[in-house]
């Protein structure tokens, strides 16, 4: 395995818990790998199977879904919905033959900046271990080319 492999990871963070946690991690200068690209969503329940699969389709090496804890969800049922959707997505990812390590759901509250840094560190390590995604750079559709500046 190439030691220089730097995975590209999409992290869907919910607006009320995980995104502020990421923010707080930055403010308190906690170190975590720069492999993640955060997509802020209003709620973890917004992250559908389609969004996760689209990330994989476009060549993401891993997808992290970070939501509130069940009892703190801003919309009451959003975090629960996220875990339901995650269950379906997990199964699809498994049938597709994408390694299960590439998809992770975690619950990070706004006060848990160290946990955010820890989860990202662990996830990046895990994805580095399984190597580049089998779908990576195989999508040649012009419309979905990854822009040069973030390659």
């Amino acid at each position, binding site marked *: 395995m190439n030691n220089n492999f730097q995975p590209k990871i999409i992290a869907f963070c919910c607006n009320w818990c995980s995104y502020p946690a990421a923010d707080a991690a930055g403010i308190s200068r906690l170190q975590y790998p720069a492999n993640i690209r955060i997509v802020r969503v209003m709620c973890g329940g917004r992250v559908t199977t389609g969004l996760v699969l*689209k990330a994989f389709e476009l060549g993401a090496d891993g997808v992290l879904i970070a939501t509130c804890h069940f009892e703190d969800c801003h919309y009451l049922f959003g975090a629960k919905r996220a875990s339901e959707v995650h269950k379906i997505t997990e199964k699809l990812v498994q049938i597709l033959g994408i390694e299960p390590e590439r998809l992770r759901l975690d619950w990070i509250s706004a006060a848990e900046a160290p946990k955010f840094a820890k989860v990202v560190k662990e996830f990046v390590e895990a994805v580095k271990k399984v190597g580049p995604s089998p*779908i990576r750079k195989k999508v040649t559709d012009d419309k979905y080319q990854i822009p040069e500046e973030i390659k």
Partner: protein
Amino acid sequence: MNLKEAVKKSKAYLCLECGKCTGICPISKFNRGYSPRILVNKTLRKNDTTLLKDKNIWNCLTCRLCDEQCPADIDYIELTQAIRIEAQRIGEEAFCSHGGAAQSLMRIMTSESLQQKRLDWIDKNLKVAGTGEVLYFVGCLPYFDALFTETGVETLRAARATVKILNHIGVTPVILHQERCCGHDLLWSGDLENFKKLAEQNINEIKKCGAKKIIFSCPEGYRTFKLDYPKYFDCDFEVQYITDVISEAISNKNVKFKDFNKTVTFQDPCRLGRHLGVYDTPREAITTIPKIQFIEMPRTRNRAICCGVSAWMNCSTFSKSIQLMRLKEAKKTGANLLILSCPKCEIHFNCAMKDEKAGKDAKIETIQLVTLVADAIEE
């Protein structure tokens, strides 16, 4: 193929503007903004730049109901396909239902390095082989089973039933480990490039396993292999739908059925019926089962109404209205079991029944045709 060729090939220039297509179109019945006649008209107009950007081109169900009625014999769905391919080329895209999950799955499958693990559904009592003469093309059933668990539909039951039937008549079917989606949905949503990639991989896999005959339980896969693959690739497989296999077995007296005490009705899937003309063998398979009471719906065979969505795009309130209309029609016949032979019909009807607006008169139990037959077989 550009639009000019498509017009020539589909004979759209013969349009009489009679409007029979719009009159019979299930989408037009509920969506007043959509009309096949106007779209044909628009295609024929010179220097019309609005056609490819028109959102209506994605509404067509390609169910072929209009083609059956057309006095000028225009192939409207082929025209629609060509228009969509052109539109996709200039960057227009359909609204994909389910957050685009189904489309993403298919596009992920175009990746050659993918090693799928899609055979977990095969039970110990089912006999399958790695190489041989007869292949069973499972299609997207494992994916649909996972993706639509919330509708309560188990599409994989149909796959198990098909293998069971084949085993019973003495066939051990080959099942491919790395089979891809047949590409039907990508083709009908205009993504010709990825369709070709999927088709190429499937044909290579099938040639590798040495199968001469392919059996389908999904009408869409059957259509795609029978009509669309030969258009773009050279492939000389014999393709057969599972009901044809069953009817052969019935005439050879290879199968015996148990009694089945229920009143049933049958929904003709558009791909199997109007696209390929298979009407009789499903009915033969149903009516051969003893004590079953089979009632036809008022609109049946080549006038059957589509299940409301095609190629996982543009699912809307109009689709729901079509589905409820059809379900009510099925319930009104007095049947208590609706037999379907397309996995998508089953998913769509069950989804519609979960709707709050669906009253008691639209609730009817559904079953896949192959599951019904497999359960009724006497061992």
